[in-house]
C-alpha cells in the first residue's frame, strides 16, 4: 500500500493523545518502524483472541470495537476515528485482544511495531503517563456505560447512543446530520437492545421530531431534548 498518502508521524496533523508531547526524534523513530495499511469497509483490523504484534493508529476513517457475547450477539464497546490508537491494552499487557476492531468505512491505518513502541515506552515517562491517562479515560467511559446499561430505560439508552455518535464523529457540514452511517442493528448494539427495539425507538424519536430519519442518515433536530431524554447535560464537555 505504498500509494497511500499517509505522512510520517512527525508531520501528522491528527491529534493523538498517546503521542502528545513526544519529541520529533521519537516520532521519527515511530515513522521508521510503521507500516501503512488500507482497510476496506467491513474488513477486520484485528480479532478478539488474537495476540498483538504492534499498535494501530488511525490516520483516516472510522472503526468500531465490539465484543461477541455468549450467544454470538455483538456488543459495540466503542468507536474510534482519526488520530486514535487501537489495541494498546492488549499490547501493554501482552495478552490477546479482548474485542474485535472492524473498519466502518475505508480506513487508512498505521501499524507501529511492538518493539519500537515498547522500547520507547520503557525510556519515556511522557509516553507512559499518556498511556495511563488514556486508560483512565477508557475506564471512566466504560464505567459510565455499565451504569447506563444497568439502570437506564431503553429510550434513554438510544438517546445516549445517538449522543455518543455525535460526540465521536460530529455532524456533517449541515451541522445536524450525524457524520456516521450506521445500521439500526449497530445502533442497537451500542445501546444494548435488539434491532427491533432500536427500529421502534428511533421511529418514535422521528415521530416526536427529535430526530429525522433519512435512509441510513440520522439528522438531530433537537439536541437539547435528546440530551434531556438521555438524562445528560447538553453542556457536558463529554458530549
Amino acid at each position, binding site marked *: 500500500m505504498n500509494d497511500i498518502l499517509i505522512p510520517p508521524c512527525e508531520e501528522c496533523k491528527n491529534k493523538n493523545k498517546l503521542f502528545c508531547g513526544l519529541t520529533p526524534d521519537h516520532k521519527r523513530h515511530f515513522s521508521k518502524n510503521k507500516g501503512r495499511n488500507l482497510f476496506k469497509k467491513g474488513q477486520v483490523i484485528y480479532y478478539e483472541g488474537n495476540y498483538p504484534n504492534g499498535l494501530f493508529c488511525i490516520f483516516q476513517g472510522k472503526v468500531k470495537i465490539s465484543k461477541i457475547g455468549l450467544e454470538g450477539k455483538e*456488543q459495540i464497546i466503542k468507536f474510534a476515528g482519526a488520530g486514535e490508537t487501537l489495541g494498546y491494552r492488549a499490547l501493554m*499487557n501482552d495478552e490477546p485482544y*479482548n474485542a474485535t476492531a472492524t473498519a466502518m468505512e475505508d480506513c487508512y491505518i498505521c501499524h507501529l511495531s511492538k518493539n519500537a513502541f515498547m522500547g520507547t515506552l520503557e525510556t519515556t515517562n511522557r509516553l*507512559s503517563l499518556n498511556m495511563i491517562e488514556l486508560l483512565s*479515560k477508557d475506564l471512566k467511559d466504560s464505567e459510565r456505560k455499565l*451504569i447506563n*446499561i444497568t*439502570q437506564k430505560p431503553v429510550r434513554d439508552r438510544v438517546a445516549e447512543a445517538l449522543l455518543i455518535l455525535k460526540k465521536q464523529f460530529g455532524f456533517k457540514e449541515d451541522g445536524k446530520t450525524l457524520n456516521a452511517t450506521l445500521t439500526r442493528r449497530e445502533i442497537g448494539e451500542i445501546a444494548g437492545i435488539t434491532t427491533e427495539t432500536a427500529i421502534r425507538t428511533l421511529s418514535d424519536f422521528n415521530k416526536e421530531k427529535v430526530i429525522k430519519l433519512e435512509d441510513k442518515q440520522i439528522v438531530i433536530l433537537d439536541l437539547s431534548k435528546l440530551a434531556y431524554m438521555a438524562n445528560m447535560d447538553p453542556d457536558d464537555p463529554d458530549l
Partner: protein
Amino acid sequence: MRITTDIHCLIEKKFDSVQYFQSGQHVYSEGEPSDGVYYIVEGKIKILKSGLNKQVTMWFCYPNEFIGIVPFFLNAETHDSTAVVTGATAKLIYISRKDFTDLMISYPDVQKEIVNELSKKISLTEMRITSSNQHSLKVRFIEAVAFLAEQEQDYGDQREKPETRTQLKLTVDNLSEISGISRKYLEKMLAKFEKKDLLHVESEDRVVIHDLNKFLSFK
C-alpha cells in the same frame, strides 16, 4: 494493584500520612475535591458510582492498591466515585498529587502496575457490560462470581485454600451488587446451586464456592 514488596515498603517509609477508617466510613465521596490518592495498607474498600436512582458498586479494592487515581490522571478537580470501607478497619496512606507524580517518575514499576490495573478494570467492566446486556441471569450470576474471584484472587481468605481446591468466599450483598440481580432472586439461585453442591451458603456474609473452576464451567 499488585505493588511489589520493595515499593510497598518504600511507600510506608516515605509517606507518614497514615489514616485509619472504620467500617462503613467514607474515605472520599463523589464530587468532593480530589487533591491526591490513597494507598491501601490494610482493609477492603468498596468503590461506588452514582447512577440514575441508586449507587452502583464498581470495584472492591485491596491492600497494595491505589484508589482515587482516575481523577488524578484526568486532571479532574473532584472525585468521580465514592470509596467506602467494607469489613474491618482500613489503614490507608494519603499521597498528595505532587508526591504521587514524583513516585511514578522515580519508580517506573509503579506506572507499569497502574497500567496493568487500569487495563484489568476496563476488561472486567466490559465483561460486565456484555453480561448485563446479553446474558441470562444464571450466566450473569456466574460471571459476577468470576469477577469477584478475579478481584480477590491474591488476597485474604484465598490464601487459606488447599492447593487442590479453588475456594472462594463471598457475601450475598457483594454478589447482588455486582450481578445486578435482586437479592430475592439471587437467594433462589443460590439455593439451586447449593442443591447441586456447587456452593454453600453459610450465612449472608459467607457464601463458599467449593470448586471455583467447576462452578465457572457451568456457564
